[in-house]
């Protein structure tokens, strides 16, 4: 009682109370014929202790005196808030389990949501870190649904004739062999026109960037990228003017590009100046062309000008390019870079937000239960004169303390999560280097935290304040149970948890089912017994004849290694490294005017390719020595999917086509049909592949080696064999077909782990929620259950009643969740493979499993209810 008095009485009253209490003590002793207690120091000491306690409860500083005016009022209010917060903290520390559960679940939810918001902001929302990012576009060739790069002829015409853009720049990403001080390594480089850097607003940190005169000086100028300069040259400014050997040819370092977070510069070691030879035909199309649209020029006008320039060019190159349907189109640079990465991110964000919501609802539910348990204490407070506002404020201050602690944890979680995602997501998420937990993300965290205080605090505060005045005092502690309103609130909260968890678990189940389908996709090749690697021969040291000799020596050397059964070369490898996608015109089914020519992967292979990869011949014959002669008539092999696509059940062997749509070229003949292999990704439908004999002077190849045992152990052998032939060559990207297939589905794998973890958390929290409600139900109704059993009720029936009561809540939640899921999963179509967004087995299976798990959670309280001893209950009652 005295403690409560301290809580409600103002300072003056407390002093009076303390003083009068001592006085009463003496008065009673006098009345009862005893000597009054010695006054003086002891009383003073007690008075001091009481005053200190009162001061501490109020906050700090002296107690306000009457007539101190508005300032005193404000101080008092602040003191009251501080007192509320201290009291809440102490009160929560008495129930550490509850406090830790809420802080952990809400903190993790808040932190993960903040991390995802930071990620989405950096990847999807924020502009690219370049000059005038909104006006940057890519100019691409558009042929029907296909968009592809421009050629040198295209770029030169565009650069000379355009007026809609402040500048245009062309670049080509290449793999180069860099030799510095005897160390040879493969690096990624970008061959760029001098206009590239000013267009993007990039500046040098040392030396200079590329200038037009570099193009006429034999293309020897290179600019180093800052990270490469730091790791490879230790950030030495003296590197300017130094010579480096790139692909066997000497180059001069003219400058270092300042550090940027731009996605175009990531993983690029150096920039070479473009020195492309004057084109003799329109193709090949390998240039990425960037342009910045002038502020004064509307997009439509710029697009119209691009189409006009392309039309003007068409007659000039008609002999080598006949597709008059192709035109030039502008693609926003940001959307091209971000691509489809936004959708999985939003999905994960929705998952995280769902978990946060459930954590908040769970916290609210726990606090409502706690409030109801403290009904008596609250009723005493009301009886002592606490206003409704005071009760609400003290309950809200509890949720504020909890969410405050959760927000602190969330900051650490967000920082940690972003570090983990940037470390592991670099390969799957574009613009990952731009992700920061700062500024706007922290504001977002603050806003979300406030929202959590409201979500978590309002219901308990409302249920606390709605307790009837004095009602709690009228009933004894044992028979006291929460009112129907409180019970309904908690049941509704748990139903809400299931309503949020259901779509999440369904989404996770769909993604996992989709991943499972992807894992079972047949690449078309032996995954375990074939190992591959990329080898590039520098043009300077390997003219055509030398290249031919090198490939033959490599083949012979590798074939002699123990454990190797066959060796072949190709310019592509499954399941995603298709080097060339070609258009063609079939003799039997010529492309109609107005239609686009069909396209498919065009793989150049050596004669041994089919034996090495174990690709079965279905029909016709494989390549033989004659087909590789330069004078041989052009022949191709097609796969089953190609044959089916164009000729159905008819025979494809013997059919003829014009490769690249070149009408003036000789016919290319199909000589055989082989099994289907995936070259455009495991998730892409089989639209057919064409194999052609490889040009034996081709310098960039993949080597494919089949082994008698597991191919992975051949990796070192492969590198050593090539180095033995030429120590200056770099062998890169060594991987078995199995490695490549796994790597190609890293994104879905990553996504399924993330969403699966969130869904599991959501389910777990919901199950804990239903368990809590039912356990509470049984505790509160032990007396009713006891009476029921005493009157002859069967224990089984009591147990069933408890389960049924819980099941009603779960069913309501799951039903709402199913409807939500129907809308939610539609949005997931782009990240699913082989599974419909409304997959019936998932939509039936997931709710069934959820209900079963919930029933299991209810069984424990049900068993306890059935085991209630009526005699004990009634005796105590």
């Amino acid at each position: 009682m005295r403690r409560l008095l301290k809580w409600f009485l103002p300072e003056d009253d407390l002093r009076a109370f303390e003083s009068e209490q001592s006085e009463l003590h003496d008065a009673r002793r006098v009345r009862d014929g005893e000597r009054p207690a010695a006054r003086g120091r002891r009383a003073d000491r007690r008075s001091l202790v009481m005053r200190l306690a009162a001061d501490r409860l109020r906050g700090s500083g002296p107690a306000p005196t009457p007539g101190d005016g508005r300032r005193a009022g404000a101080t008092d209010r602040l003191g009251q808030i501080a007192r509320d917060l201290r009291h809440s903290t102490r009160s929560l520390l008495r129930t550490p389990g509850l406090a830790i559960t809420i802080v952990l679940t809400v903190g993790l939810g808040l932190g993960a949501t903040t991390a995802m918001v930071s990620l989405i902001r950096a990847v999807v929302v924020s502009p690219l870190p370049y000059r005038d990012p909104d006006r940057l576009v890519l100019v691409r060739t558009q042929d029907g649904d296909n968009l592809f790069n421009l050629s040198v002829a295209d770029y030169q015409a565009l650069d000379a004739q355009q007026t809609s853009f402040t500048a245009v720049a062309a670049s080509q990403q290449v793999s180069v062999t860099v030799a510095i001080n005897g160390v040879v390594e493969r690096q990624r480089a970008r061959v760029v026109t001098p206009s590239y850097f000013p267009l993007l607003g990039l500046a040098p940190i040392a030396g200079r960037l590329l200038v037009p005169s570099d193009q006429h000086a034999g293309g020897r100028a290179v600019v180093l990228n800052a990270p490469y300069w730091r790791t490879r040259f230790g950030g030495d400014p003296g590197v300017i003017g130094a010579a480096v050997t790139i692909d066997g040819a000497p180059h001069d370092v003219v400058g270092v590009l300042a550090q940027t977070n731009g996605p175009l510069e990531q993983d690029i070691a150096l920039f070479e100046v473009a020195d492309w030879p004057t084109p003799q035909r329109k193709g090949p199309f390998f240039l990425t062309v960037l342009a910045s649209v002038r502020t004064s020029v509307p997009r439509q006008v710029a697009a119209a000008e691009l189409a006009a320039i392309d039309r003007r060019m068409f007659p000039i190159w008609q002999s080598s390019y006949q597709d008059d349907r192709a035109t030039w189109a502008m693609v926003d640079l940001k959307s091209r870079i971000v691509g489809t990465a936004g959708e999985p991110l939003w999905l994960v964000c929705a998952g995280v937000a769902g978990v946060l919501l459930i954590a908040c609802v769970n916290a609210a539910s726990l606090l409502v239960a706690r409030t109801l348990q403290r009904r008596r204490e609250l009723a005493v407070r009301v009886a002592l004169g606490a206003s409704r506002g005071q009760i609400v404020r003290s309950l809200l201050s509890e949720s504020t303390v909890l969410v405050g602690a959760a927000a602190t944890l969330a900051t650490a979680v967000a920082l940690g999560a972003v570090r983990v995602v940037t470390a592991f997501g670099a390969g799957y998420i574009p613009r990952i280097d731009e992700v920061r937990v700062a500024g706007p993300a922290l504001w977002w965290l603050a806003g979300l935290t406030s929202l959590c205080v409201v979500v978590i605090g309002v219901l308990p505060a409302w249920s606390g304040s709605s307790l009837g005045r004095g009602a709690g005092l009228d009933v004894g502690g044992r028979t006291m149970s929460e009112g129907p309103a409180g019970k309904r609130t908690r049941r509704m909260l748990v139903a809400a948890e299931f309503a949020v968890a259901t779509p999440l678990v369904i989404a996770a189940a769909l993604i996992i089912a989709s991943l499972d389908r992807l894992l079972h996709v047949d690449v078309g090749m032996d995954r375990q017994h074939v190992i591959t690697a990329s080898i590039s021969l520098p043009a300077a040291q390997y003219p055509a004849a030398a290249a031919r000799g090198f490939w033959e020596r490599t083949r012979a050397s590798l074939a002699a290694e123990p454990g190797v059964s066959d060796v072949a070369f190709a310019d592509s490898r499954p399941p995603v490294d298709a080097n060339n996608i070609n258009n063609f015109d079939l003799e039997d089914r010529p492309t109609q005017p107005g239609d686009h020519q069909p396209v498919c992967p065009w793989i150049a292979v050596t004669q041994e390719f089919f034996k090495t990869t174990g690709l079965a011949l279905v029909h016709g014959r494989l390549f033989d020595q004659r087909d590789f002669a330069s004078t041989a008539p052009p022949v191709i092999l097609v796969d089953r999917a190609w044959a089916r696509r164009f000729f159905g059940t008819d025979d494809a062997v013997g059919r003829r086509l014009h490769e690249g749509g070149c009408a003036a070229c000789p016919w290319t003949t199909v000589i055989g049909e082989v099994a289907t292999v995936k070259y455009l990704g495991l998730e892409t439908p089989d639209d057919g592949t064409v194999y052609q004999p490889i040009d034996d002077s081709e310098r960039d190849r993949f080597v494919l080696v089949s082994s008698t045992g597991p191919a992975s152990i051949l990796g070192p052998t492969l590198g050593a064999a090539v180095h033995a032939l030429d120590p200056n060559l770099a062998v890169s990207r060594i991987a078995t077909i199995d490695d490549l297939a796994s790597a190609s589905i890293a994104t879905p794998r990553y996504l399924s782990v993330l969403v699966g973890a969130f869904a599991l958390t959501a389910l777990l929290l919901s199950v804990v929620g239903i368990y809590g409600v039912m356990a509470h139900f049984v505790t509160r109704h032990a007396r009713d259950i006891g009476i029921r059993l005493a009157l002859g009720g069967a224990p089984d029936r009591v147990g069933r009643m408890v389960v049924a009561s819980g099941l009603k809540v779960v069913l309501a939640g799951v039903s709402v969740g199913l409807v939500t899921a129907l809308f939610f999963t539609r949005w997931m179509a782009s990240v699913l493979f082989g599974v419909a967004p409304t997959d019936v087995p998932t939509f039936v299976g997931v709710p069934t499993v959820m209900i079963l798990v919930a029933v299991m959670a209810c069984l424990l309280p049900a068993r306890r209810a059935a085991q209630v001893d009526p005699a004990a209950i009634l005796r105590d009652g």
Partner: protein
Amino acid sequence: MAPGALQPFELQVLLAALRLGDEAYSVPIVIELEKHAGRRVSQAAVFIAIRRLETRGLVTTRLDDRGTETGRVRRYVRLTPEAKRLLRETRDLQARLWHGLDRLLDRG
């Protein structure tokens, strides 16, 4: 309970304060109540009742901290005219209700 009605304990505190006049504060009120009730009365309950009565405008209080140096502080209580009116009403109502009941009650 009607909004204007007095709770039994509040009524007792008011009556004790009325009897004590200018000397009414929690200590003599408690002693007075204990004298009549013959059992312990909580001083805190009296304090709370006074606070409630003050909120309802039935008493005014005055802090006497002239004895601060010695640690003595008292909050004196005085009934407002509204309290006296309410007491009269309560007394009259009870008198009317009790009228003629003594005989029935004492008969056993």
